[in-house]
């Protein structure tokens, strides 16, 4: 306690130097927090966008369907399996899907497309498909009067075939049993924009898609949405234990290129911040050394009257750590409102950035423990490290050598 009081008094002795040191450290802290917040925020935003758009937080497949999709690799869709998934408290929604590459024909035109069979009700709960309908009506499970099943087309498909809501579209593909899949559907809605992810998709109600591909009772995928995306790994592990015959793929495995580039970017960001803080602390080292050198006589006297070297060492360390803590406090007070604004409002971008068809109008931040605590730990660690050499130096002062300068 005495040391703490002494340390506190000591740092007030050279007001200007203390203030400048505080400023540089709190500046470093604030900058680190802001940088981490913006990076985390932006990525969280992107991830939230594509997981709610079509990926889901995790996906359930048969074997290696994710790496080698084949129409015949369908898993049996049963009430039991679905219940096994929905019974977990973290799970918000489950949506089954069926996929196949098809040729879409209309009139004299034809174009390749991706067929996606969805359950209209469940898909609406899980993803934003229903919100992406630009023209026409999102299909429901009711049969139509003319016995044609409804289809929803991505914009590029509709444009290539020169058709719109109300027209017929022919789909040809190969079924899961090798037979020729062919049928006519009525276009009920157009989905998305020219550049959105779904621009080359054709959506069919699940049963129509299963009938088309001769795979009744089977689906290729369950897309699972959670209440909290941060629980993804834990839920994946739990599900894998329950569904031993199936493969659970988290969104990180579904979008591996995005995930690895994101991790690389974050890592690069962290390295830059470390370098900046390192430079800040070289300055702090200089300051602490200076203050030690100045007080050589003082330490000599202290040693002469019986202070242990360890105590002197501890004094220097506590002084530096105290400076660090105060600057963290100041930095946090300054940066917290700023980060809060970024998280809740976001900085409006003059030029919206387009990443994978998703438009970003705001640069968002993240207000989380990681953003504030990680730089704090780094700074305290650096402060500790930086105070050791001067501390040892001070502790080694011999009274005679010191006072020979008096």
């Amino acid at each position: 306690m005495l040391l703490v009081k002494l340390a506190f008094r000591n740092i007030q002795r050279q007001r200007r130097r203390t203030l400048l040191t505080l400023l540089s450290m709190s500046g470093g802290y604030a900058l680190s927090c802001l940088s981490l917040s913006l990076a985390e925020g932006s990525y969280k935003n992107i991830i939230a966008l594509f997981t709610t758009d079509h990926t889901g937080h995790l996906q359930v497949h048969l074997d290696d369907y994710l790496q080698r999709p084949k129409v015949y690799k369908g898993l049996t869709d049963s009430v039991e399996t679905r219940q096994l998934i929905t019974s977990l408290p973290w799970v918000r929604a489950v949506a089954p899907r069926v996929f196949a590459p098809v040729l879409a024909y209309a009139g004299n035109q034809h174009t390749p497309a991706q067929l996606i069979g969805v359950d209209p009700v469940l898909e609406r709960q899980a993803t934003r498909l229903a919100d992406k309908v630009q023209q026409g009506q999102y299909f429901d499970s009711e049969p139509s009067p003319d016995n044609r099943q409804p289809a929803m087309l991505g914009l590029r498909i509709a444009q290539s075939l020169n058709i719109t809501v109300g027209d017929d579209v022919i789909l040809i593909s190969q079924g899961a049993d090798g037979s020729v899949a062919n049928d006519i559907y009525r276009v009920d809605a157009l989905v998305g924009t020219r550049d959105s992810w779904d621009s080359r998709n054709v959506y069919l109600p699940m049963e129509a898609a299963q009938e088309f591909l001769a795979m009744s009772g089977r689906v290729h995928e369950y897309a699972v949405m959670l209440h909290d995306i941060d629980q993804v790994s834990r839920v994946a592990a739990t599900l894998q234990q329950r569904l031993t015959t199936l493969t659970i793929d988290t969104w990180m495995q579904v979008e591996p290129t995005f995930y690895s580039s994101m991790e690389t970017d974050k890592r690069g960001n962290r390295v830059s911040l470390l370098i900046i803080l390192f430079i800040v602390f070289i300055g702090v080292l200089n300051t602490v050394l200076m203050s030690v050198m100045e007080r050589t006589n003082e330490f000599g006297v202290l040693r002469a009257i019986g202070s242990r070297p360890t105590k002197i060492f501890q004094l220097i360390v506590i002084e530096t750590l105290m400076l660090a803590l105060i600057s963290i406090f100041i930095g946090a007070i300054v940066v917290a409102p700023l980060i809060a604004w970024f998280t809740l409002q976001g900085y409006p971008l003059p030029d919206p950035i387009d990443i994978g068809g998703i438009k970003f109008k705001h640069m968002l931040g993240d207000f989380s423990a990681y953003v504030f605590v990680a730089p704090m730990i780094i700074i305290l660690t650096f402060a500790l490290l930086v105070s050791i050499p001067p501390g040892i130096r001070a502790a080694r002062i011999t009274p005679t050598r010191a006072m020979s300068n008096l």
Partner: protein
Amino acid sequence: MHDSLLDPTLDPTLDNACSTLTKMLKRLRSTCGRTVLTGLLWTLSVTHAASEDLTNPPAIATDTAAQATVQATVQTQAHALIDQMEALYRGKTSRARILMKINTPQYQREMSLSASSQGVDDFFIRILSPRREAGITTLKLDNEMWNYFPKIDKIIKVPPSMMMGSWMGSDFTNDDLVKETTLSEDYQLSLVETPEQYVITLLPRTQTVTIWGKIEYVIDKRHLVPITQHFFDDRGELVRTLNFSHLKDYNGHLRPSQLEMKALNKPGHSTRVIYESLEFNPDDLSTDVFTLRNLRRRQQE
């Protein structure tokens, strides 16, 4: 091995004779009843060969003129055999009821078809079952092929790029159905005779583009029906094998009732074709069947 000996390109006049003969035969075929004429020619070549005493080469084998005659005869024999095999299930016209069983590691499928043919150039297939594919029809006229899908009411011509694609998901390609009768024109043949079999090796002619690098045709001597066909790619690797088995009498004609195509490049994939019935020159088969119009019609042929 015997290529140099039997290579018709070495002697252009003989080659001309061979191809003219084949072409004449083809023309006559379509008007006169192919099998009969081929059988006649075959008998002629056999007797000719017998008189030449092929099985025991004559003492004057070194004489070039005799050699040439030997070559020519063996070539003709080989050509005749191949042509005969290729037209085995045709007549002037024919009609068959076929069961096709497709086998893969992922699924098994069975289709019931009715197939009609006119000469060697035209045929018409209608899928009768399963219900999902019933009514799908295929028409081939010469080298062109069309498919019709009743559910979408669309006639789609099979473009050259899709010729190597499988027919209806089986191990038979579109090309198998379209090109199969020009084997004797596109390939040069060499014949090896054993007491039980004729083994004919087909190698592509130098000026021709062919799909297969080599085909080995094994024919049963006694019944004059094929036993096996081996298909090799241009690197000499065996790609697929077609086995003929279960000889059956179809109104006096002895034919293998089962064909099995095994794809060796896709393990576990095979297609079996079973001829449940086979009629040669049925009275009630009109030429109307072999028209694009007929693709859309719903009745049975």
